[in-house]
């Protein structure tokens, strides 16, 4: 073999090609990410616009016709849309990338305004159509101002999932929104006493567990009873159906 072996020089072409391919992969990844992010925000805006349209539609109906057909109205109108939007917004908040972004703050403000409008409209409808909507106003703040707010949020989410008929309006007191400030002042919510929950004209400050909260809302008991009765009636119908079938068998 050769006396003093020498090494082949490095082929820098390979390094350059690999660098460009890698850069291309990263650019595509970020491109896809941005595409999906903006799609998500467009989706949220779409849902909000839908809600706004629905609210405007009821308002207009109320004004133009002089009265809403009360038999079509109950406390469950629009609550599903609002709840779905709330879930999407809280997801965006927990996602590192979008939390704190100006778009999210804008959407949250818009959502808060929609909630206030919905609340006011519900009050008017309730007076008009003689029903009592079950509404809960929930005021929360940042973790440093209100460390218990995270847990209270969990409790209310669970309540929302268990009782979709209940309207839970949640307001981030940190948002710079004059309408929100008015609502807060009207209900005498102070920043030091968060989380604050207003239900049935009573203000509850501080953290409550799920069961404690249920006790404070007697209407939930009524819903539970109604559900139990409906369940019983359903079971009875099934068993009656069975017994009438067997009579029929006997005849035949």
């Amino acid at each position, binding site marked *: *073999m*050769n006396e*003093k*072996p*020498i*090494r*082949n*020089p*490095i*082929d820098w072409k*390979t*390094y350059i*090609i*690999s*660098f460009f*391919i*890698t850069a291309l*992969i*990263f650019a*595509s*990844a*970020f491109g*896809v*990410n941005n595409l*999906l992010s903006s*799609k*998500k925000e467009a*989706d949220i805006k779409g849902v909000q616009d839908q809600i706004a349209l629905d609210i405007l539609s009821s308002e207009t109906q109320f004004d133009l016709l002089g009265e809403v057909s009360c038999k079509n109205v109950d406390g469950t109108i629009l609550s599903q849309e609002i709840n779905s939007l709330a879930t*999407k917004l809280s*997801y965006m908040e927990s*996602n590192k*990338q979008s939390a704190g972004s100006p778009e999210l703050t804008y959407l949250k403000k818009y959502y808060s305004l929609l909630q206030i409008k919905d609340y006011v409209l519900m009050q008017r409808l309730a007076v008009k159509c003689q029903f009592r909507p079950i509404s809960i106003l929930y005021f929360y703040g940042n973790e440093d101002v209100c460390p218990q707010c*995270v*847990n209270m949020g*969990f*409790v209310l989410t*669970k309540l929302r*999932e268990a009782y979709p008929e209940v309207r839970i309006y949640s307001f981030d007191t940190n948002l710079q929104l004059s309408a929100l400030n008015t609502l807060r002042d009207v209900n005498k919510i102070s920043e030091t006493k968060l989380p604050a929950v207003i239900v049935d004209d009573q203000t509850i400050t501080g953290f409550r*567990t*799920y069961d404690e909260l249920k006790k404070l809302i007697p209407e939930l008991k009524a819903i539970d009873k109604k559900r139990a009765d409906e369940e019983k009636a359903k079971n009875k119908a099934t068993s009656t159906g069975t017994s009438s079938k067997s009579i029929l068998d006997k005849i035949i």
Partner: protein
Amino acid sequence: MQYIVGLFNYSSLFLIVFFSVFLMVTLIENRKKIKGERALLNHNDTEAENTDYPSVTILVPVFNEQNTVDKTIQSLLKLNYPEEKLRIMIVDDGSKDNTWEIVKKYNNHPQILLHQKENGGKYTALNYGIANCGTEMIGCLDADSEVDSDALLHIIPYFADKNVGAVTPSLKIQNPDNILGLMQSAEYNMGVFTRKILGFLDAQYVTPGPFSIFRKEVFSKVGNYKHAHNTEDLEMALRLQENHFKIVNAHKAVVYTVGPRTLYRLYKQRVRWTGGFIQNAIDYRRMILNPKYGNLGMLILPVAMYSIIVTVFFLSFTLIKTIFNIIDTYKKISVIGWSFNFNAFSFDWWLYNIQAPMFIGLITLALVVFSIWYGKKLTGVKDKRMIDIVYFITLYSIISPLWLITSVYNTIRRKDASWR
């Protein structure tokens, strides 16, 4: 602070992807070479003359291998190679079991030489063999490995290039039958691919103990084996590279080795390997980021060292993050109980957050799967199963940090890992 962490994460990710892409680009650039090697091997199969067969000694250093040494010797005797050109030297490094009794029965075999010595470590057995063999080529086989009968025929033609100092084989796991074995099998198949590419880059940093073949004169130029933190095969490769000897890979020469069957044994083996690599790399640090040493110095060694360190860091962060997640979940459960609400799982694809790193991770995963598949294809051994790839992908990243962390810790504490 978060910005720095993010930058660190993304640049590490970039390096990993770059490295994988680099290997693929190298493969594409050398595909003609692979075809050429196939022609070279075929020529040798059909038209070789006696001068094409240099004399070879295979050293078998043994220490307490009574269960496997006979099979190893048998597989060597079955090598397709002119008998008068092949010698097998068994060096017993002071075994305490029946190894010597088993080996003694080959005393009168014309091809086999036996030697018993006091225990001194594998490298002393190898050095004895080097000092006492008179053949042109010298190789080694661990006593728990077996060679394919054509392995030597597939290696020798590479020495036609006078600049080649050593040739490495393809290693496979012999009869993997449990999850750990299959996981290692996939890993070794990926190793077949990687070793081939490193061969093209003149950047192999291990001449594996099982059946690497050397030109004997190389040892007179660079010296004999050293203790080298119990990874003498690694150190010898680095030494050859430092002296610019060419190390190529014979992908068709298949050697079967027995992989550790228990997690503990695997852990011990890998602590030795990784620790040995780190410490040898530190010994040869003059090569790192030195263009004089080509792709080995500029890419392979730096990336290997960096990826070990990064994995240890990344693991620590992930561990801390997981602990916080568990604490958060515990808090949530203690507040509202186990409300396993199926509504939460309504697949709003909208919520499925495909972040950029996940997308990139998928691409890297695809490259890993490709390299395992290609490694299987290179050796020509038919292996259509996919379960080994699945085990490798799911388990390896969970298990390997165990020995990575220990190796780094040992290096810091300046401890050498033991063999058993």
